[in-house]
C-alpha cells in the first residue's frame, strides 16, 4: 500500500509526540517520586529529597575521556537535524504539480495538477447547493488523491451535495485523467446565515 504523504506525517507526528510525552512523564515522575521521599529502588537516578538534579561529579564523569565531546557533539547534531526536518515537514503540503496520464498506446502524457484541480473545483461548484469548492491534489503522480473542501449554501442538503460530488464531479475527473480510482477526502462546511422565518 502506498500510504499518502499526510498519513505518513500523521503517524510520524503522533509517534514522536507520544515519545516526547512519555519522556517528560517518566523524567518528571522520577524526580517527583524522589522529591516526595517515596521508597525508590537503589538504581533510581535520585536517592531522595536532599539529592540534586545533576551533581558536578556526574556532569564531569566522562569529561576527560577522549570520546566524550565528539559523541556529545555528534548526538546533538543528529538531534538538531532531525528536529529541523520534523519542523519543516509540518509546513510541506505535498501538493501535486502534475499527474501522469496513461494514453493507452505506451506513451504517457502529463496533466498539470492545477488544471485538474480547476476542473474539479468548477464541477463541484456547479452543483446545486455548493457555494464554493477548494480542491488540492496530493499523493503521487501515478496515484493522485484529492482533498476537497465544500462550502454549502444555506438550505443545501449535505447528503445530496456529497452524492453529487462523489458521482458526477469525481467521475469526470477520473475519466479525463484516465485514472482507475481517485481517493478523495471531503470536508463539508456551511455558509453562516441567519434563521429565516417562513410563517
Amino acid at each position, binding site marked *: 500500500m502506498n500510504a499518502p504523504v499526510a498519513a505518513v506525517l500523521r503517524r510520524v507526528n503522533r509517534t514522536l509526540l507520544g515519545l516526547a510525552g512519555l519522556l517528560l512523564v517518566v523524567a518528571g515522575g522520577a524526580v517527583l517520586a524522589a522529591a516526595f521521599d517515596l521508597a525508590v529502588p537503589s538504581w533510581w537516578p535520585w536517592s531522595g529529597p536532599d539529592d540534586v538534579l545533576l551533581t558536578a561529579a556526574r556532569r564531569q564523569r566522562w569529561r576527560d575521556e577522549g570520546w566524550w565531546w565528539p559523541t556529545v557533539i555528534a548526538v546533538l547534531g543528529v538531534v538538531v537535524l532531525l528536529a529541523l526536518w520534523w519542523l519543516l515537514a509540518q509546513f510541506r503540503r505535498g501538493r501535486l504539480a502534475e499527474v501522469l496520464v496513461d494514453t493507452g498506446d505506451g506513451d504517457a502524457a502529463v496533466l498539470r495538477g492545477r488544471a485538474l484541480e480547476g476542473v474539479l473545483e468548477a464541477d463541484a461548484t456547479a452543483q446545486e447547493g455548493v457555494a464554493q469548492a477548494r480542491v488540492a491534489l496530493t499523493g503521487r503522480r501515478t496515484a493522485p488523491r484529492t482533498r476537497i473542501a465544500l462550502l454549502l449554501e444555506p438550505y*443545501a442538503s449535505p447528503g445530496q451535495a456529497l452524492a453529487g460530488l462523489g458521482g458526477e464531479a469525481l467521475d469526470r475527473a477520473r475519466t479525463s485523467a484516465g485514472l482507475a480510482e481517485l481517493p478523495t477526502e471531503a470536508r463539508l462546511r456551511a455558509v453562516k446565515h441567519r434563521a429565516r422565518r417562513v410563517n
Partner: protein
Amino acid sequence: MTTPERPTVPPQTTGTDGTGEPGGAGEDGDGVPVLAGAGTDPRRVRRFWSVRRIPAALVAAVVLGGTGLLLYDVAAVRADRDAMSWRRELADDLAGRPLDDGLTVAAAAVAVLLGVWLLVLASTPGLRAVLPMRRAHPDVRAGLDREAAALALRDRAMEVSGVQSVKVRMGRAKVAVRAVSHFRPLDEVRADVERVLTDGVEDLGLARPPALTVRVDRPSKKG
C-alpha cells in the same frame, strides 16, 4: 461530552454479500473482519484523525532551539571560547538545588502534565468538529462540520409552522433541539418538529446519525 461508540458492522447476510463467496466467509468467524478491513465496505467508516501539525511543530521548534543552542555552546567551548553564562548558571543550579525545592518540584510537575497532554494528543483522533459521513462512493471519505449540521437542522426546524426560533446543540452522538413556538398547540408543533428533524438528520448523510431530542416551549413573557 460523550465519546462515540465504534461503528458496528451489521451482520452480513450471505445473500447480499458482494464478495462472490456466498456461505463460507459470512459464517466463518475470522473471515468477516478481514473482508471488512479491506476499506471498500461502505458501511465501515472511521473517524478523521488529525495530523497534529501544530503540536508537532511546537515540540520540534522547542527541541531544535534547545539542542541547537547547546550544540553551539559546546562547539564554542571546544574551540577555546568561553561558555555562555546561562550554561554555567544552569550547571550550578542543577548541582545546588535540592529535589524538594519548590522550583524543582514545580518544574517536574509541569513536565508530567505536559507529558500527559502530549500523550493524549498522540493517542486521540482530534477533529471533534468533523462528523464522518456515510460512504456513498468507495473512493470518497467525507466529513461534515458539526456547525454545518446544526445549521441545516435549524433551517429545517424553522420551516415548521408555529416555530418562532430554534436552538440546536449538535454533539457527536446526540443532538438537542430547543424550539420556541408562539402559536399552535405545543404537542402538535413538537410532533411536527420531530418528524421534520428525523428526516433532517437522515438527510445529513452521517455515518452514525446522532440521537435526537426535541423540546418545544412557549416564548418567555416579556417583563
